[in-house]
C-alpha cells in the first residue's frame, strides 16, 4: 500500500492474486485504523449492484438500483464519517463498470461556492440518528456529502448539492477500472466516489468493502 500516494492524491491502489481478498482488505484497514461494520453487519461487506426492490429501504441501491451512484462520501450520515474506505474486487462484472473518484482538494470552486458549501443547512436523514449539518465546516476536517441521505432545507441547498454533482465533474474524476484482485484505498474525508454508469446494468460485479475509523 502506497501511503505517500494516499496522502498526496487521496487514494492509492494495489493488486494481487489473493486467495482470501477479505483478509487482505481487512488487514489493510487495520493498518490504517479501526475497521468498523456498517449497519451492524460484518466488518467486510459485500457490495453488488441490486435492483431497488431488493435493497434496504433507505440506501443508495433503493434510490438508484443497478444504475450509477452519484458522487458521495460513505457514512456521511454518521456524526463523523469513516476516515478511509478499502475496496477489493472479487469480480469486476462483464461491463467493467468503473468507480469514479473526485478529489475535493483540487476543485476550483469560487469563494461564493465555498461559502455555499459551508453555510447551507441539510437534514442528514438516518432514522433515529438524523441530524442537521453542512457539506463543509471550518470546525472539522472532512466533507459531508451524500445526495442519498442529505435533504436540502432550502433552495440554496439544491444549488449546493449540484456543485458536487457527478454531471459537473465526471470528466475530471479519476476512473478506477476494476479487475479481480485490485484493492482501492480511499481517503473518505477528502475524496468523493461514485459508481459510473454503463450501457448494461450488470449485477455480476462484486466488491468487498471495509470502513475504517
Amino acid at each position, binding site marked *: 500500500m502506497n501511503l505517500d500516494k494516499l496522502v498526496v492524491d487521496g487514494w492509492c491502489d494495489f493488486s494481487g492474486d489473493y486467495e482470501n481478498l477479505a483478509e487482505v482488505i481487512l488487514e489493510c484497514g487495520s493498518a490504517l485504523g479501526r475497521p468498523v461494520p456498517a449497519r451492524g453487519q460484518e466488518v467486510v461487506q459485500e457490495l453488488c449492484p441490486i435492483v431497488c426492490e431488493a435493497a434496504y429501504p*433507505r440506501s443508495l441501491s433503493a434510490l438508484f438500483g443497478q444504475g450509477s451512484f452519484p458522487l458521495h462520501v460513505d457514512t456521511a*450520515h454518521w456524526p463523523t464519517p469513516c476516515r478511509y474506505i478499502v475496496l477489493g474486487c472479487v469480480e469486476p462484472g462483464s461491463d467493467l463498470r468503473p468507480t469514479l473518484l473526485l478529489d475535493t482538494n483540487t476543485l476550483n470552486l469560487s469563494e461564493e461556492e465555498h461559502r455555499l458549501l459551508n453555510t447551507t443547512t441539510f437534514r442528514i436523514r438516518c*432514522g433515529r440518528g438524523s441530524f442537521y449539518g453542512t457539506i463543509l465546516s471550518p470546525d472539522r476536517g472532512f466533507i459531508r456529502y451524500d445526495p442519498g441521505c442529505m435533504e436540502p432545507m432550502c433552495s440554496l441547498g439544491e444549488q449546493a448539492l449540484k456543485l458536487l454533482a457527478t454531471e459537473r465533474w465526471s470528466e475530471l474524476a479519476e476512473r478506477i477500472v476494476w479487475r479481480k484482485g485490485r484493492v482501492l484505498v480511499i481517503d473518505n474525508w477528502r475524496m468523493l466516489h461514485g459508481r459510473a454508469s454503463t450501457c448494461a446494468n450488470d449485477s455480476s460485479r462484486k466488491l468487498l468493502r471495509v470502513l475504517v475509523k
Partner: protein
Amino acid sequence: MTHHVPAFLPEALYSKSQLYIRRGFRAKQAGDLDEYQLWASLALELLGKAALAKISPALIADPTHQESLFSACGVQIGTDLKTITAKTLFLRLPHITKDFDSDVQKFCEQSALKRNAELHSGELPFTAASQEAWDKKYWYAIAVILVAQGRSLEEWLGAEDAKAPKQVLEDTQHAINGAVAERIQRKAEEFQKAYKNNQKREEVINASENIRAWDYFREFATGADEYWLAVCPSCTAKGVLAGLIWSEEISDEYDPDDPMVEFVDNTYLSEEFRCPTCGLALLGRREVVAANLPEEIQVRETREREFEPGYGND
C-alpha cells in the same frame, strides 16, 4: 483555551490510588489493619474513578456542579472542583465491565460506607471484620477494575507486592470452583435419592420444560432485569437464570413484510441461578461462570417502529 485539570485526569487518579495502597501496605506491615483497610478503600475508589475518567473525565465530574463539568471537559471556570460520590461511581462501573457484578458492587458500596463511618463518626467499622473474607472480595474488586482500564495487579502494585493478592485471587477462585462443584454434586445426589425411579425422574425433568422463568422471580436474591431458562448442572432439568441488562441495541435488520416493527437486541449478564426441581442455587456471576452456565443471553424484542429505518451506502 482548553486544558486538563488533575482532579479528573485518569493518570492522576491512578497514581494516587497506587500511593494510597502503598500507605495501606505500610500500615498493614506495622500491624494496623484498620488503617490498612481505610487506605485500601480510598485506593479502590480512586482506581474506580480512574477507570471511568479514562473513558471520559466528564463521567466522574459532579453533574450538579457546573464548574466541575466544565473543568472535566477542559474548560476551567472555577477552582472548586467536585467528583461523583462513591455510590454513583459504583453504579456506573457495571456499565464498563461485565465482571463488576452485583456482588462486587455491594462490597464496594459497603467499603465506602465503612470508610465514611471511620472518618466521620466514633465507630470502628474496620475493627473485628474478618480480614481474610475482606481480602478475597477486595482483591477481586480491584482486579476487575484494573482489567476494565487495561491494567494488571503487577502494574498497579509492582511484581513483588502483587504476588500475595494474586495468590489470594487464585485461592479464592479455586475455592469458588470447589464450592460450586461440591454444591452441584450434592444436589445431584439429593435429586437421585428423591427420584430413584428412572421414569419418574424423567417425568420431573420433562415437566420442567414448561416452566416460565418469570414465575420464579420471588426466589431470587437479586432484583433482575430478565429471567431465562438454562439446563441445571445438577439434575439436568430446566432452571432459571436471572440477569441484569448490559446493553440495548436497535438492530438494523428490517422485515420487509412488516416495516412498522423494529428489533431491539438486549444483552443480559447472568447474576444468579436457581433450579426449582433440585433446589440448586448459585449466587453471583462467579458461581454461575464456575458452573459453566451461560454468562449472558441476547434477547430480541420486537416493538413498533418509532423512526424510519436507518440509511446505508449499500
